[in-house]
């Protein structure tokens, strides 16, 4: 079976159908609180896909994805109050700015062994947390930082998506495009280079692959996706809080990406549900949300030790077994 760019795998078609169903029905199911939570979950699913593919396909660990989302959100907010450009333009600029900032932050580690990228991104996450806490997020004020006391100026949502329901649909579309963007890369020559790099960086170099370039490229994609997600989050909430982008959040997102299953789109969805919806549910049931940390930590250890493909991987195996094939 020749593997062309536009082939539709069972997993892929399931994903597209899932996205379509969400698009159609999700906004109708929820009241305004849960609408916001669901939108947030969709956005974080997109951000997770960025960090997950880097780990699954290249073994690269980035512990600062949520921090990068913060950069995207900051740029979106600043542009929103500075100029009159449409939401989409701001989102693209936010994605590009985050990509570049991500490169600057990761630069010390991209030519070194994988461990160093984890360390450098962890430090970056810490640094970004401090920056956001110190300089806050723009809300219509003057100057570079654009922060003012008092209530914030209004935020301009996309022309197509003014209501919360429409915005949720908008996010679903953008997130799906994000997933397809990554998958497209995987099916073309970058994906081939990444697969060989995963196998052995030496072999990749011997095959003419510029390993640093491809690793940088992958990190750039993750950064751009984080930037776009952050921009969408700004659009959803209208304002952003530095508490959303703490270092611990980036660490948890990465942990959940593994727990969910870094190789699969379903894994990113599961990760986002756990990340955004589980704490809400715990709250509703009167359980201390600190225990979510314990669950996530234990889940990460379990996934690393016994189930490297995460929950989504186990679901895939189950489905394969039920269909009678080899798992």
């Amino acid at each position: 079976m020749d593997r062309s760019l536009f082939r539709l795998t069972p997993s892929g078609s399931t994903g597209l159908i899932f996205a379509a169903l969400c698009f159609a029905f999700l906004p109708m199911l929820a009241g305004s609180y849960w609408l916001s939570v669901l939108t947030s979950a969709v956005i974080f699913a997109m951000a997770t896909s960025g960090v997950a593919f880097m780990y699954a396909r290249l073994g690269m660990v980035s512990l600062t994805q949520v921090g990068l989302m913060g950069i995207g959100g900051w740029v979106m907010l600043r542009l929103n109050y500075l100029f009159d450009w449409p939401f989409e333009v701001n989102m693209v600029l936010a994605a590009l700015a985050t990509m570049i900032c991500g490169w600057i932050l990761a630069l010390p580690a991209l030519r070194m062994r994988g461990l160093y990228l984890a360390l450098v991104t962890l430090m970056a996450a810490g640094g970004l947390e401090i920056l956001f806490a110190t300089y806050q997020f723009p809300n219509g004020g003057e100057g570079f930082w654009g922060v003012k006391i008092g209530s914030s100026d209004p935020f301009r949502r996309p022309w197509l998506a003014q209501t919360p329901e429409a915005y949720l649909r908008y996010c679903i579309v953008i997130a799906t495009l994000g997933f397809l963007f990554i998958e497209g890369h995987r099916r073309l020559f970058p994906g081939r280079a990444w697969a060989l790099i995963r196998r052995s960086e030496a072999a990749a170099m011997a095959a003419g692959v510029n390993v640093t370039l491809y690793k940088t490229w992958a990190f750039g994609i993750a950064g751009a996706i984080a930037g776009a997600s952050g921009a969408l989050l700004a659009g959803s909430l209208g304002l952003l809080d530095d508490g959303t982008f703490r270092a611990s959040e980036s660490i948890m997102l990465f942990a959940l990406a593994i727990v969910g299953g870094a190789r699969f789109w379903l894994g990113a969805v599961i990760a986002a549900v756990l990340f955004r919806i589980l704490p809400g549910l715990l709250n509703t049931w009167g359980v201390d949300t600190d225990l979510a940390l314990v669950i996530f930590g234990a889940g990460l250890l379990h996934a690393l030790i016994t189930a490297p493909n995460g929950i989504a991987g186990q679901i895939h195996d189950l489905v394969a077994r039920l269909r009678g094939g080899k798992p």
Partner: protein
Amino acid sequence: MTRGSWVNWGVYAALMAGIWLALAGGMPFKVTGMFLASGLAIGSLYALGGIGMVVLYRASGVLNFSAGAAGAAGAMTAWQLVQWGLWPPLAWVGCIAVALALTLAYGRYLAPLLAWRETVVKAVATLGFALIILGLVSFIWIDDPRSLELPTDQIGIVLFGLRVTATRLMAFAAAIAIVIGIWAFLGRTEIGLQMRAVANARDLSALLGIPIRRVETIAWGISGLLAGFTGLMFANLIRLEPVVITFMVIPSIAAALAGRLNSLSLVLVGGLSMGVIESLLTLSPVLKGVRPIAPFVIAALVLLWSQRGTRLTFGGRD
């Protein structure tokens, strides 16, 4: 030491001197000296955290991100014991004991399950453990402002015309003493020799009959003891808050990177300079808000500098 590391020492010293002149040049030493003392104390803790990481990493291949969390658990336990009326020195021992127990538990029961995985995976797993500890500690103790006092807080010692609290002096002295102690241990005892062998070539050491498990356990033990001590000191010198202490692992990593995950003396001087520079930045009206970033920036610059002119090579094991 090689000429190369003398150069590194020189660079750190020059950096500290430069920042000092830039920010503190015109002010009386009585004022700026306070920042220097405070910076040296915190820097000592960064260095100790870094040293614990490097010793364990070299001996076992695990970069332990949960050291901060273990320290936080220990510090909260000590606080609780004091609340219950226990004689404080015993509570501090309790702090170190809890951190040691948690670290050894991981090293003995969980780390072996990942022994053959990549270094990154082993490190990420310790993150999972850190989350578990942090979650439990946050669950057990509700979010409240607390403080951990040591009797040395009340004692002031006059040095070079400055009044320095004994606690800060203790942190600094401890860092120096521990580095010397570990250096002596690694260089002069048989176990230390075995640990260096394992750090250098694990498979060969196993073939030579070196008891890997025992060496590793000792390394985990050292890591746990240091985690407990630094947790206690961070609780006193910075803040007794589980999240804050847990994430003190980040500047410790910065210090470890300053030593290229290898040289203890460079971790020491790197950590000290990070603490000092961070503290001195308080004097800069522009940068004082973001001074906690100083360790990261320094570590990033160190990494970039160490890569100049090199390609990705495969000569050694790292």
